[in-house]
C-alpha cells in the first residue's frame, strides 16, 4: 500500500529582523510504506529542519505534509501525532535524566492509552525486547546506560506509540562504530518485522548505503538528487552528489583522485547564491547556472531517478573526478557553442 507524503515546504527561520534563513525551500518528497529513505546532506542542508517539519516540531512556512493523503501541517490531533515519531541524534541529551526507562514508557503508554493500565508493564518489556534490551533495563536511569543503549531506549520510546513512520535524525553519529551496527540492525529489523517506514537523516554516506532503499540528497535547502541507493552510487547525476561521494573516505583509497572533491566552504543559507545554489562550487558551472535555477527532473528513461542540474541528463554521465569533469565541461562548452566562465580560478588543482 502506497502512501504519499508530498510536501512543499519553505520553512523559514527568523535570523535577524530583516534576514531570513531559507532552511528548506520548495522540497517535494514522497515516501512509500515500508521504505527506508535516506535523507543526506551536510550541515546547513536543511535535512534536520525538514525532518522536524514532518514530525510536527516545526510548522512549515508554506506547503504541506500529507500523510495518507491527509494534510498534517495544521495542528495535529493526538491520534495523528502518534503515527509519526522521531529519534534524535544525541542519546545523552534526549532522555530525561530523572526518569527511569519504565517511567518514560509508562508515561507514554498511559497518556495515549495504548494498552490497559494493567498491561503497561508487560508492554514496556516487549518494547525493550524489540530493540534487543532485556527487562532488567526497565528500572535504570539514563546515566547508567551507554550511548548505544540510550539510543535503543530512544527507539523503544518512539515505538511505544506504535507509529507507522519513524524519523531517525542522525541516530548513530554520536556512537562508536561497533555500536552503530547494532542500532542500524535494529532499524532494519523493525522495518522487516513491523513494516515500519523510516526516514533516516544522516550525513554519513556509508550508513545510508548499507541501510536505505532510496536516497534523497539535499544542498542548502533544496533537493538535488533522489533515486534508489545503488543507482545513486553507480550513476550519480548531480555534481554535488558526485562531489559528496568522492569526498567520502573508503577502505580502498586507490580509486580516488588527487584533487579535493569540492572547493571552498558552503555559502550562507541567509543569502543563497543565485540560480543553482551549488554553482559557485561546481566544476561544471556555466553562465546558465548562475541565472536559472534547475528543477528536479527525472532522466529520459529513468523515471525514478531525479536530479536538479542543467547538465544532469546530457550525453555522458558525470564522472566523479574533477579532471574528467573539467574535460567534460570543455566538451559541453564546444557543444553549446559558447564559453563557460571559469568559476573559482583561485582553487588549487
Amino acid at each position, binding site marked *: 500500500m502506497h502512501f504519499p507524503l508530498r510536501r512543499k515546504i519553505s520553512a523559514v527561520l527568523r535570523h535577524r529582523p530583516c534576514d531570513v534563513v531559507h532552511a528548506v525551500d520548495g522540497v517535494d518528497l514522497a515516501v512509500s510504506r515500508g521504505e527506508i529513505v535516506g535523507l543526506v546532506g551536510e550541515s546547513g542542508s536543511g535535512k534536520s529542519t525538514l525532518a522536524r517539519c514532518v514530525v510536527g516540531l516545526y510548522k512549515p512556512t508554506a506547503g504541506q505534509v500529507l500523510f495518507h493523503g491527509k494534510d498534517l501541517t495544521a495542528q495535529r490531533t493526538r491520534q495523528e501525532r502518534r503515527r509519526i515519531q522521531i529519534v534524535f541524534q544525541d542519546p545523552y541529551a534526549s532522555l530525561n535524566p530523572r526518569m527511569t526507562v519504565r517511567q518514560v514508557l509508562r508515561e507514554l503508554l498511559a497518556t495515549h492509552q495504548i494498552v490497559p493500565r494493567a498491561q503497561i508493564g508487560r508492554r514496556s518489556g516487549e518494547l525493550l525486547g524489540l530493540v534487543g534490551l532485556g527487562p532488567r533495563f526497565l528500572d535504570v536511569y539514563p546515566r547508567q546506560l551507554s550511548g548505544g543503549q540510550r539510543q535503543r531506549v530512544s527507539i523503544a520510546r518512539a515505538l511505544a506509540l506504535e507509529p507507522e513512520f519513524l524519523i531517525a535524525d542522525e541516530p548513530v553519529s554520536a556512537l562508536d*562504530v561497533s555500536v552503530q551496527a547494532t542500532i542500524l540492525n535494529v532499524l532494519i529489523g523493525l522495518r522487516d518485522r513491523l513494516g515500519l517506514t523510516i526516514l533516516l537523516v544522516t550525513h554519513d554516506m556509508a550508513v545510508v548505503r*548499507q541501510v536505505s532503499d532510496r536516497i534523497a540528497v539535499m544542498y542548502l535547502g533544496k533537493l538535488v538528487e533522489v533515486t534508489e541507493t545503488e543507482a545513486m552510487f553507480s550513476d550519480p547525476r548531480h555534481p554535488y552528489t558526485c562531489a559528496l561521494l568522492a569526498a567520502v573516505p573508503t577502505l580502498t583509497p586507490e580509486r580516488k583522485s588527487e584533487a579535493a572533491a569540492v572547493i571552498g*566552504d*558552503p555559502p550562507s543559507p541567509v543569502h543563497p547564491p543565485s540560480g543553482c545554489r551549488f554553482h559557485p562550487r561546481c566544476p561544471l558551472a556555466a553562465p546558465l547556472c548562475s541565472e536559472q535555477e534547475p528543477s528536479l527532473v527525472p532522466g529520459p528513461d529513468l523515471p525514478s531517478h531525479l536530479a536538479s542540474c542543467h547538465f544532469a541528463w546530457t550525453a555522458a554521465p558525470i564522472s566523479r573526478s574533477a579532471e574528467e569533469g573539467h574535460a567534460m565541461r570543455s566538451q559541453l562548452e564546444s557543444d553549446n557553442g559558447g564559453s563557460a566562465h571559469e568559476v573559482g580560478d*583561485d582553487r588549487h588543482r
Partner: protein
Amino acid sequence: MLEVQDLTVEIRSGRSIVRPIEHISFALDANETLGLVGESGCGKSTTLRAIIGLLPRGGRIVGGRILLDGRDLVKERRAELQRVRGRSVAMVFQDPMSALNPLMRVGEQIAEGPRAVLGYSRGHAREWVADLMRRVGIPDPERRVNAYPYELSGGLRQRIMIAIALSSKPKILLCDEPTTGLDVTIQDQILKLLVKLQDEEGLSIIYVTHDLAVIAQLARRLAVMYAGRIVEVGSVRDVFAAPSHPYTLALLRCAPRADRARTGLTPIGGTPPDMMAPPSGCRFHPRCPLAVDECASGDFPLVTVGSAHATACIRWEECAQYAHKGLVMVRE
C-alpha cells in the same frame, strides 16, 4: 625519529587510579604518517598527550620512555619540554571552537608560537603568519588574519589550528581527530591538505581517529588500540589484507562501507570495558569469538607475524584464516 617504548600513564582522581594506557610501544619514522585507531576510551588521545606533555591534571607517566632523536622526554625537566613542544612536536586538536581562544584574532594566535619559541619580531611574525595561512589554503589571508574564530567556518578554523601547529616549524605533527564533526567534503579538503603539507614540509604525522577509512586515505602504517593497549600494528595494506587480531577484524567488518553495496552489518558483541576495572589477561577476551581459557590471564606482548606487522593475539593464525576466507565470526 620518535620511539615510544613501554609507555604507561596513570591518572589519579580522588581515590581512584586509572591506567588509560599501558605498555604502549611504537615507532615513527621521518616523513611518515602513522595512524592510531580505536574507539572512544581506548587511550589514543592520552597517548598523544603523553608524548607532547599535556596530560590532564592528576595524570603522569609512570613507566616507559619517549625517545625523540635519542633523548628521553619522560626524563626531561619541564623547561626542556617547553622547548620541545611546538619546536619539534606540535598538536592539532579535535574541536577548533574549544581549542582556539575566542577573544584573540587568529593571526595573533598563530603568531604566538613563533614569537615565543623562535623569537620572531612582530613584523617578521606577521609575514610568516600570512604566508602560513596561504600554505594551509586559507583564501584572502591578509584580510582573514584579523578575524576572530567565531567569524570563520569549521573548515577554516581547523586550517587555523593546523597553521598554529606548523607555526614553530615542528618536525612531528600529532593530530587528535581533527576532522571529527566536520562535513565530509570539508574533511576531504583537510585530509588532502595534510597530505600536501607532509610532502612539502617533510613532516611526520601521528593521526588519531576512530575511522579506519580516514586512515586508509592518509597513513601508510597504523596501530590499533583497545582498552589502553596496542593490539595490532603494521602497514595499512598488511593490516587490512590480513588482520591478525580479532578486534581489528571485527572493526573492519562492523563499519558500514560506502564502497560496497549492502552486505549486512556485524556488530561486535558485548560492551567496551570499564577502564576502572579492566578484564584480566587479554582485555578483548570477554568479547572475542576466538577466546580460549589462556586468554583470560597473563601478558600478551606484540609478536611479529609478518614484515613490520605485529599482533597481541595468541590465536592470530586462526584470525588471519577467518579474514582470508571472508568469514564472519560469531561468538557463541
